[in-house]
């Protein structure tokens, strides 16, 4: 009797195991399915709208007709500005964290600042940028205000990724440099940074992806002007803001889908490059570390 009871328990737990593994697998399939549906739907609706004229012409009647050229310019300029400001600061922070100080109060403070900043919602960045850059520093709705706000938003991503990339460089590399008489700065610039470069670029690409897709932080700092800008103090409208306004105010669903397709394709491409760089980089370093 006892033997059959035990067999029942075993059979039951085996069956439960199969069910749970099925449920877990199903969840992963569901998550990937959602991604496929989102990207698939946007491209299915948006790709037919994409023509050279759509990309290269100015919008007419607030976006009801015409193309999206000025918003592409706006996106590129704002993103480039954000990266130009955030990348040096982020990489410098990462160098300090990875190569100079590993613990202590200074490091704890810097980490607290970085982690907290990473959690600040984009609308708070938008409000801050509006209060500080647009009003207090009197830059107005401009490329400058928008780019500086975005720079603050992507800074934590760049710091984190760059630090990880530098820590992944094997210690032996540094030891060889020191044993040849290299100073710390020489070691960093000639040994650590070149080897960590793909990882650092990953962080920058992730920052580019976030900048391109951002709306809340941009709409209150860079404005929503549909003109092609001529100086850093001109307002611009990015693709995300344009898409948001088209969709929310129901101006033109057709052009909204077209803009969404360009947006999704560019963000996916940027993130794909980021992911690819990181993995090739880690695989190479892991191979070298052995």
């Amino acid at each position, binding site marked *: 009797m006892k033997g059959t009871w035990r067999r029942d328990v075993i059979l039951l*737990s085996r069956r*439960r*195991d199969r069910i*749970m*593994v099925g449920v*877990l*697998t*199903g969840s*992963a399939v569901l*998550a990937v399915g*959602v*991604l496929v549906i*989102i*990207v698939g739907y*946007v491209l299915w609706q948006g790709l037919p709208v994409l023509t050279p004229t759509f990309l290269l012409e100015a919008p007419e009647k607030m976006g009801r007709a015409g193309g999206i050229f000025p918003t592409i310019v706006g996106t590129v300029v704002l993103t480039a500005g954000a990266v130009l400001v955030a990348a*040096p600061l982020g990489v*410098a*922070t990462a160098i*300090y*964290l990875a190569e*100079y100080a590993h613990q202590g109060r200074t490091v704890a*403070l*810097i980490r*607290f*600042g*970085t*982690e*907290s*900043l990473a*959690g600040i*919602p*984009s*609308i*708070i960045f*938008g*409000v801050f940028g509006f*209060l*500080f850059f647009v009003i*207090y520093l009197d830059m107005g709705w401009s490329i400058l205000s928008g780019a500086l706000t975005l720079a603050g938003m992507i*800074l*934590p991503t760049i710091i984190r990724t760059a630090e990880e990339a530098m820590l992944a460089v094997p210690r032996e590399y540094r030891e060889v440099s020191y044993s040849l008489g290299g100073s*710390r700065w020489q070691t960093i610039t000639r040994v650590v940074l070149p080897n960590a470069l793909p990882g650092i670029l990953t962080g920058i690409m*992730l920052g580019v*992806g*976030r900048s391109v*897709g*951002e*709306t*809340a932080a941009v*709409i*209150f700092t860079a404005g929503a002007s549909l003109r092609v800008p001529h100086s850093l103090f001109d307002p611009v409208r990015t693709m*995300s803001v344009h*898409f*948001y306004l088209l969709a*929310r105010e129901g101006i033109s669903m057709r052009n909204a889908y077209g803009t*969404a397709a360009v*947006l999704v394709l560019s963000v*996916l491409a940027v*993130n794909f490059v980021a*992911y690819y760089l990181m993995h090739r980089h880690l695989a190479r370093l892991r191979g070298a570390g052995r």
Partner: protein
Amino acid sequence: MKGWEWLIRRVLVVMAFSSLSLLALIALFIFAGGVPILAEVGVEQFLLGTRWAPTRGHYGILPMIAGSLWVTGGALVLGVPIALACAIYLSEIASEPVGRLIKPALELLAGIPSVVYGFLGLVILVPLIRVLLGGPGFSVLAASCVLAVMILPTVTSVSYDALRAVPATYREGSLALGATRWQTIRMSVLPAARSGILAGIILGMGRAIGETMAVIMVAGNATLIPVSPLDPVRTLTSNIALELGYAAGKHREALFATGVVLFLIIMGLNLVAEAVAGRGRSR
């Protein structure tokens, strides 16, 4: 050479403090913008007032606080089980090539702009809810569903890292005692990864509370305290984004004060997440 190295180190320290300085600057300006109206209306009136009619002198944000809580709670209920299941699947069950396919897919999911999520919620989810469940469609439920998808990558990837950090010996010991895979996951892997998973859930919560554009597009934005998941709702973030464009004077200050409340909630969550993750590391 020595002086040069010293100088570089100083410069790096100064640059490394940029994120902390920026955080302080954000806090300073948001508080400076919002505190005057808080002092005038009274913190209690502001937080617990149920009427938001800023042009007529009513500055109560309780409906928006309730809205943020509803929407975030809904997102966690819908999103966390799936995210956890994904993390467990990737860490414990998936074979190497399958994992190498799914992980990047989830990371791409994290990169899709929030306006796109909101837009798809608007054109797919809102009509679906309106037809199947009634009501206006613009609802707590629609916002929760959209947010659930948006927090999925965050919760999954932090939980995945926590599960991967559990030593293989835990699994081997359990399997050697005759436990099935699920028993091993439930009784030895999950408890060991608990604090990391909790930190991931808190991070997801922060993202859900802070999300703006996606929520605006599907939530309906009525300034009433919702009583059912099918009611329209306005969150703290939407309140700011919807009105900042045209608000002036005290109305505008009240929006900054909404920002103060949001900032404090997020910083609180950050600290909790940090404490939870820290406790996990020290164990």
